[in-house]
């Protein structure tokens, strides 16, 4: 495999990894507040179909992105209503949302299956930065949504770890009793975190249907939401580490096809299996490493909070 072809693995890996990045960063915000959102896959589907429909109707890419974020956020609101206010089981509620959103998105998008979008996000080279050897080609000749992901990762990291509201959010995820005692509204914080996570998931969906492969197909996420959830654990709830994880997943996919294209003798089924195999390995490794988990996992993740109740 030539050096140039090898470089394209990373170019394609960043483009393919961005969808995981958006979804994982949103999930990190949600889980840092102590709420588990397994509905990611469904929220991404709804975001994808909403973004596509709006773009199809109004020929406005960014309006499509905005609509996808709102749609994902709306599903997040539903999740928050159920798990925060009604204190339903977070795992079951998340799984239910996936099934609900999968059906909803299929129904909503029926008329645009296989329709060409009027506009799509195309790669734009950033002046100066794109001229840097290797790095410029990998990171600065991508589409605008990829650039948006860079900004959102930094902003999320800064907000979570360097600001007072970020600290409040993390404390709600670690010890809601304490947070409540010092006057932080657990309910309001968790609502906001889940809605934000849903918005990010919607953005991930819009990335799929407007930039990565501009089209709408039922179930087009094809398990990417689940990989993103595994990625959150892999990244030990840090947006910065999520970047590496997301690009590793993207590169694994890109590498597999390139090996096939140059005729390396690897069974194609093995290549198709790689991201999922990787997910399982990550989950196994992380589950074993108890010390590391204690360090990083939000302590009250998955538990509903009721004041004065133990």
């Amino acid at each position, binding site marked *: 495999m030539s050096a140039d*072809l090898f470089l*394209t693995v990373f170019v*394609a890996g960043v483009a*393919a990894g961005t969808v995981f990045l958006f979804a994982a960063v949103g999930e990190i915000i949600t889980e840092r507040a102590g709420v*588990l959102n*397994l509905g990611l*896959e469904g929220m991404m589907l709804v975001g994808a179909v909403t973004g596509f429909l709006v773009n199809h109707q109004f020929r406005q890419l960014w309006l499509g992105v905005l609509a996808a974020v709102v749609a994902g956020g709306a599903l997040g609101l539903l999740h928050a209503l159920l798990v925060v206010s009604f204190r339903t089981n977070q*795992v079951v509620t*998340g*799984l239910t949302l*996936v099934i609900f959103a*999968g*059906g909803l998105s*299929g129904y909503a998008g*029926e*008329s645009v*299956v*296989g*329709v*060409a979008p009027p506009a*799509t996000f*195309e790669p734009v080279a950033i002046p100066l930065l794109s001229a840097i050897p290797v790095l410029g080609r990998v990171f600065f000749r991508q589409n605008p949504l990829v650039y948006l992901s860079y900004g959102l990762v930094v902003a999320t990291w800064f907000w979570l770890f360097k600001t007072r509201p970020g600290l409040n959010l993390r404390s709600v995820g670690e010890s809601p009793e304490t947070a409540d005692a010092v006057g932080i509204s657990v309910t309001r914080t968790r609502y906001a975190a889940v809605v934000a996570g849903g918005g990010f998931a919607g953005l991930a969906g819009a990335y*799929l249907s407007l930039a*990565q*492969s*501009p*089209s709408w*197909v*039922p*179930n*087009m996420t*094809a*398990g990417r939401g*689940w*990989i993103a959830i595994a990625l959150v*654990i892999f990244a030990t709830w840090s947006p910065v580490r999520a970047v590496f994880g997301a690009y590793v997943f993207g590169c694994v*996919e*890109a590498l597999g*096809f*390139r090996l*096939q*294209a*140059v*005729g*390396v*003798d690897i*069974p*194609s*089924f093995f290549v*198709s299996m790689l991201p*999922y195999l990787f*997910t*399982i390995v990550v*989950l196994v490794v992380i*589950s074993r490493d*108890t010390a590391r988990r204690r360090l990083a*996992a939000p302590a009250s*993740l*998955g*538990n509903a909070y009721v004041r004065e109740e133990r």
Partner: protein
Amino acid sequence: MKSSLKLISLGVALMLAAACGTGSESAGEDSGSTGGGGSKDVVKAAWVYVGPRNDGGWTTAHDNGRLAVEKTLGDKVETAYVENVPEEPAAATRAIEGFARKGYDIIFTTSFGFMDPTLEVAKKYPDVVFEHCSGFKTADNMSAYFGAMEEAKFLAGMAAGAATKNGQLGVVNAFPIPEVIRLGNAFMLGAQAVNPDATMKVVFTNSWYDPPKEKSAAESLLDANSDVLTQDVDSPATGQVAGAAGAKWVGYNSDASEFAPDAWLTAPVWDWSDYYIERVEAVLDGSWESHNYYGTLADGIVGLAPYGKSVSQETQDMIDAKRQEIVNDEFDVFQGPVYDQSGRVMAKKGEALSLDQLLSMDWFVKGIEGKLPAS
């Protein structure tokens, strides 16, 4: 905490497994009654589809056939369909039997995986006739039908062979199964008929329909220097990639030129209209008989979509001439000499590959660069 993390892991693992094989069933059928043999005043015809009828590919082609039946036979026919039926015996049987029980006279099932369920229902409902597409099992009241897509693939390959500048083609394939391999080989032979030195790289996505994956696969082919792409998968993602990179593209199943007008060369397509009209008419006048039908270019079951603007008149004339030879039975797509990748002679000069060889094809022809699993 510990147990909830385990629960997450379990949930993720479960859903990963589920995501690999889901399909939603949504029925869009009418209700009704009556049944029985002999000639009829009104025929009730039903279609069972594996995908959504607006998938822009395989299922759209069948649904266009259904619409042609409605248009041609008018009030002598009532049609219905059910889409997104999974290729899973229980679900398929339920969909097929649903129509049989409601008194439909003829039921078309349009995916390979529906073969055994169709046969099973056919045995239970001897007064209803069944038509199964792309399989090989038949019964007194069940036909098999399919078409020689390899003929259209060969012609499309000629367009690709004429368009390539560096002689390197690339194909995004679904699964390494005989049908896909046969069609890829036909395409390669067509390209070589125009450009004897043409080669083709192959990437398998292991899915009929996964646009993000198809996009990645198509990009990897361009990165490996292919300048004309084609596909055996269903979405137009390959064409979008080719269009964005200034490469050329041969689609599959339908005219998807709107996705990448500049890249578009043509596409091998299905047209089931005449066959469906004929079979429904046969039920109308009571002449329906079971058969194993393999339609050809001559029958119009397969053909080419309209050419893109970059296909020269000269190329079009050359393809038309070859089409005529195939229609007149003067040329066989797999006419010898045919070599495999290692240069072994698979069909001698003056001979052609046998039907058995075609149906069990597990080798690539010379010029295709790529490996098949376990070959």
